[in-house]
């Protein structure tokens, strides 16, 4: 299934350096990475291995120094900032470790934020009912139907992360990029979030890239990509076993 599906994301020889004064830090030194449609991939690696940077580059939050990124066969690196903003808004959903909700807005408004960004005022007046229904349905699905009008500070960590996932999904993105989504949560809540992601992957066929340093979390994915010192580490690891186990489990389910 993985082999037959066309790649949604294709990353080739991606390089990224950070300069601070005289010293240059090579974070990514030529990463190759493919994400097939409907695939759930974990990226693991130690701190500083460049996994977050890779995610940011794929999410168009940053520009690479060299290499290419293709989304559905179209290169998306080196675009103008206006087109990058547009793609970020329409094709990519992002979930972060510390939720990153806007504190001034309530749960529903946070979920609506990407749609508000997309539409101007007049357009918004036309589409807002439909947008609200979509957002409400998403929040209902995540069990937050009764907390629409609550501000982020009135929500628990798990609830905030679910609002963040709903926000990432409200634009119907091609791919969901999650950066340590369980990192700030206790085990049980984190497991709940992971369950939600798996369910989205299974039921909706959503392509997901999950960055984590937690092996247990990574095991829930179809495939694990290991980053070390800015490169994909192909050496077989103990983790691979569990990854295959995960794949087997998925095959059973499918």
């Amino acid at each position, binding site marked *: 299934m993985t082999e037959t599906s066309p790649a949604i994301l294709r990353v080739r020889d991606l390089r990224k350096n950070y300069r601070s004064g005289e010293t240059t830090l090579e974070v990514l030194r030529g990463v190759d990475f493919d994400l097939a449609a409907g695939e759930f991939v974990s990226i693991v690696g130690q701190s500083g291995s460049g996994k977050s940077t890779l995610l*940011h580059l794929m*999410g168009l*939050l*940053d520009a690479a120094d060299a290499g290419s990124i293709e989304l559905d066969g179209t290169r998306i690196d080196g675009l103008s*900032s*206006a087109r990058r*903003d*547009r*793609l*970020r*808004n*329409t094709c990519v959903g*992002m979930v*972060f470790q510390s939720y*990153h*909700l*806007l*504190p*001034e*807005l309530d749960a529903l*408004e946070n979920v609506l*934020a*990407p749609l*508000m*960004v*997309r*539409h*101007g*005022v007049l*357009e*918004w007046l036309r589409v807002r009912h439909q947008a609200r229904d979509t957002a409400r349905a998403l929040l209902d699905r995540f069990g937050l139907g009764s907390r629409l009008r609550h501000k982020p500070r009135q929500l628990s960590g798990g609830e905030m992360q679910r609002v963040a996932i709903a*926000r990432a999904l409200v634009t119907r993105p091609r791919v969901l990029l999650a950066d340590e989504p369980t990192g700030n949560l206790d085990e049980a809540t984190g497991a709940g979030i992971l369950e939600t992601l798996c369910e989205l992957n299974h039921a909706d066929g959503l392509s997901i890239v999950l960055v984590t340093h937690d092996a247990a979390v990574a095991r829930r994915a179809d495939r694990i990509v290991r980053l070390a010192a800015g490169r994909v580490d192909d050496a077989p690891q103990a983790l691979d076993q569990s990854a295959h186990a995960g794949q087997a489990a998925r095959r059973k389910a499918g």
Partner: protein
Amino acid sequence: MYKLLLCWRYLRTRWIALASIVSVTLGVATMIVVNAVMAGFSYEMQTRIHGILSDLVFESHSLSGFQDPQWHMDEIKRAAGDDILGMTPTVAVPAMLNFQVRGQWITRQIMLIGIDETTHAKVSDFGRYLQHPGNREQLSFALRDGGYDTIDSQSDTKAVTRPALEGAGWPHRRMRVERERVWREKLEADRRAGGATDPAATDPAASEPSRSVDQQVDAVLAATTTDASPVAAGAAADPAAPPATADPFRQARPEEGTKMDPAREQFTGIVPGLGLASFRDNAGTDRFLVLPGDDVKITFPTSGTPPKAVSDTFTVVDFYESKMSEYDSNFVFVPIAALQRMRGMIDPQSSLASVNSIQIKLREGADLDRVRDTLRKVFPADLYAVSTWRDKQGPLLAAVDMEMSVLNILLFLIIAVAGFGILAIFFMIVVEKTRDIGILKSLGASAGGIGGIFLGYGLFLGIVGAGAGLALGLSIAWNINTIRAGVEWCTGERVFDPSIYYFYRIPSIVHPFTVLWIIVGAVGIAVGSSVLPALRAARLHPVEALRHD
């Protein structure tokens, strides 16, 4: 859409930003009030100056003036055509006014202006500034039989501020004459009785006024007032206009030729400025040194070369009050014919009189400068000067204009200071909101959109601040006199002393264009000072912004 929503949410949750616009509000309100009051003062001053001076002044450079004003007026009429509404000749010479108060002679430096009593009021607002209602209708240099205003006719108060004018005119003159006669008789009696040696007694007013003398005077007055007035009025109607004869001095000094009865006759009438003859006491009442009916002496130069000083006696018949203290304490008006005769400005051969200047009134809407330039072309500039009333008061009007500009710049700096406050607070908000900006960028918000949030925020603050300032400023400007009364009532202090300003209320004129300009400026400063924070927010790198805590 998110821009509006976030602007609104940031406003609702950040009252500190509203605090920063209080100074915008105050600045705008101050500017509106100051401009309204300054415009009011400037307008009042201009109307007064314009009212005193006619539209155009045509004058000679020399004190002796030019001959045959009628010919000049005809020439002016021919040159300027239909624009001319009225003309009147005047003679103006520097002079000295002398009058006696309680036995002391007081001398004041004045500008003695000879005017034509029938036409002068037609070219300027001169008539409006007189104190007798009859003179305001048509000026007469004959003393009036009482009826002078005790209430300032140009103010809107109904308080009697000039009680001394109650008995002014012929009644005052008769009483004074009687008082002097009684004094003289008493002195005479004293001298006959024992040869008075007290030097003070020779000066009637310097010694303590005796009650018994006052009673005598009252008794005499009671006897004389009943029969004196009709005769006096008849006698007074005429002496201002004697025929121009070969010997002017006999006419000019009636006391030398015939024995004059001061209780029934008057000298040539004059109208001095109110400031020359009165002062205002602390209670706001005008106290008079000289009243209509009193005689004064004026020393002025003759028109010969070199001029000689001559003096003559005149009778005060009214006061002139333009509320421009510069004029009110300087101008004394006399009949032009009398002044021409006394100064020797009438050519004995041709009996043509000379004048210094011709005051010209133009029709409504005529272009003053154009008519002035036309006349300057017709009359040689080395003999005649033609100037508009604005030219005459150019330095004063320019000074007021400059004062207004400087004040506006200073006040605008207040709003600029408020702008720096907004700048600082916005930078703070941008730093505080760095992570949110990163979030918005990760959701696909453009740099322009992020900047727009802060620009819109600044615009909103500016509009709210300027709007509040507008409301505050206009309500103060329109009710400034009520506010002044309230403040005076609260503190018991006079905030606006009419004795200094000669206005009874604070003038206030709101020009819509000025207000618009102030509002646009204030909003512009608010938006302008949010540009830098907005740029900073727009340029934030999304990844770094997301990492910010």
